[in-house]
């Protein structure tokens, strides 16, 4: 298993009282799976994704990713873990506006101390993979929304993560670009990337091989892996 969550719970203090956003979720994701997490707004999808991505800590429960108990990592260890094992794609792309597309892709590799030549080559390769060969030197404001999201995907893949997490990756895109993105995710998964996607987009959810339905912080339906 790439990911194994057991009885994950996340509570927040609201007006001095604990409110649970995730209430004891258990989930296993095998290598090469493509999982979509769906559910109404406020059901805990993004909170779950943050827990799975080690950018938030569970109040209780355990989480193992790539054989490592993530719930017990220190901040520095979790940071390093995210750098090397997790790829993030955000709804709003969040590219660094002052860097070019290639530099944005290089950023996680530079942080991982990859030599300049190797990371430049990898950035070119990844931009080619997402169909942006000729846009390496463009800055985010010179790219369309779809192109920016492709750069964000290339950035997420930079350090060859064990798991790619995406939070509403088509949320800011028009229908046609969203469809292109759905194809892109399908291709990523076909090429071996393990994907967990949080989405409201029915088309994106349909493209996933497994759909997990959340309601009020608990899994109410899990279609299980499908061919």
């Amino acid at each position, binding site marked *: 298993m790439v990911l194994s969550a057991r009885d994950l719970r996340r509570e927040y203090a609201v007006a001095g009282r604990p409110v649970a956003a995730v209430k004891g979720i258990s989930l296993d994701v095998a290598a090469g799976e493509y999982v979509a997490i769906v559910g109404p707004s406020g059901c805990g999808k993004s909170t779950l994704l943050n827990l799975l991505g080690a950018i938030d800590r569970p109040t209780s429960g355990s989480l193992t990713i790539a054989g490592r108990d993530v719930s017990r990592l220190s901040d520095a260890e979790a940071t390093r873990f*995210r750098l090397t094992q997790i790829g993030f794609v955000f709804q709003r792309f969040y590219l660094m506006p002052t860097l070019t597309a290639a530099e944005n892709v290089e950023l996680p590799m530079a942080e991982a101390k990859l030599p300049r030549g190797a990371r430049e080559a990898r950035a070119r390769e990844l931009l080619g993979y997402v169909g942006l060969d000729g846009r390496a030197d463009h800055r985010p404001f010179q790219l369309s929304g779809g192109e920016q999201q492709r750069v964000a995907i290339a950035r997420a893949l930079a350090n060859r993560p064990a798991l790619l997490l995406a939070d509403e990756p088509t949320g800011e895109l028009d229908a046609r670009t969203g469809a292109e993105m759905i194809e892109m995710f399908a291709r990523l998964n076909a090429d071996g990337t393990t994907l967990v996607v949080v989405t409201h987009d029915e088309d994106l959810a349909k493209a996933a091989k497994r759909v997990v339905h959340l309601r009020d912080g608990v899994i109410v339906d899990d279609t299980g892996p499908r061919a």
Partner: protein
Amino acid sequence: MLMRLAIATLWRRRARTALTTAGVAVAAAMLLDMVMLGSGMRESFRGFLEQQDYHLRMTPRGTMPFDSEATIGGATALLARVASDPDVAGVAPVLGGKLFVPRGDSVVSGFALGIAPGIQADYVIAEGREIAAPNETVWNGALLEAAGRRIGDTVRVSAGYDPQLRRFTGARELVIVGRGRFVMLSGGELAGAVTLATLQAMGGADRSDRISVALVRVRDGASADSVAARLERSEPQMSAISTEAALRFVDERLGYFRQLAFILASVSLAVGFLLVTTLVTVSVNERIGEIAVLRAIGVARWRIVAQVMVEGVVLSTVGAVMGLGLGLITAKWLNGILASFPGLPAAFDFFLFEPAAAYKALGLLVLCGILAGVWPAWRASTLPIAKTLREEAVA
């Protein structure tokens, strides 16, 4: 790459960065000027005293050199007694007075110095030559111009004016042999020098065998303060003021200036600190989503701190360098204004550029810039990633 990102962030908001840097530069310039002002007058005064190469100034007890018209009688014997001290290497007597030079229907008056040519330390010859005979005189440029005279002219000069008889007294025919730069006189002050004996003679009985000041050179290795104390004991009618004592006196008088300079320098540092803190905080607030994403994709906390602090360092360093130039320009301008105060030597510098002190002050400003980045950097590095991303998404 993150350092590049920091610089690029500043470049991205060029106008704001330029304005903040300009603000830091003004603060740095003010800081530099206050540091220069704090020590400038004292060191400038020391330069004047040391330029004369005499270590003691003997004046009638209780007076400062040329602070009053008081003179000392029995000068010949006094000078001989002072010169006989084993630690005294030389004595240069000076008598102060007035001189009156006719020009057409009017009269030009100026300051007269009776000196001992060859050992005098009150002027340097800028043109012509030093006085070599009792009927020769050296004038400064202002007196030459005011009297309409040139080197080589013979002029009739008086040393006094009797208001009852309405006539000038102590008149002499003198030959102008040189133009001198009188180091202790203000820019526009008119002055001329003659031999001590000539000025004493021109002053009549009132000035006979009298001097205003005796400049004393102390032998190498001897303590000027010890010699001064000894001379004051042996010549109780005299005050012997060493260069250091004179500087202490100046220090007391300049205490207000130094306090003012210290307060304004502190204000400058605080302004620089607040400017940089404000800009870096605003910059962090604007990029809070970006910073959260950097943390989410695995950028270490200390790298975020470094990135934010680099912004503060760049702003304060560029501001300090610009402030150095600006400070020197404003110091020169202010010096021109202050040096025109009446009674001050023309070459007196209020603002003295001492590289070590200046760089230390600007270094302090850069340090303030570094410290100014600490809080925003800490804030950026400790923000909760998930919460920030959620809030950014909602926003």
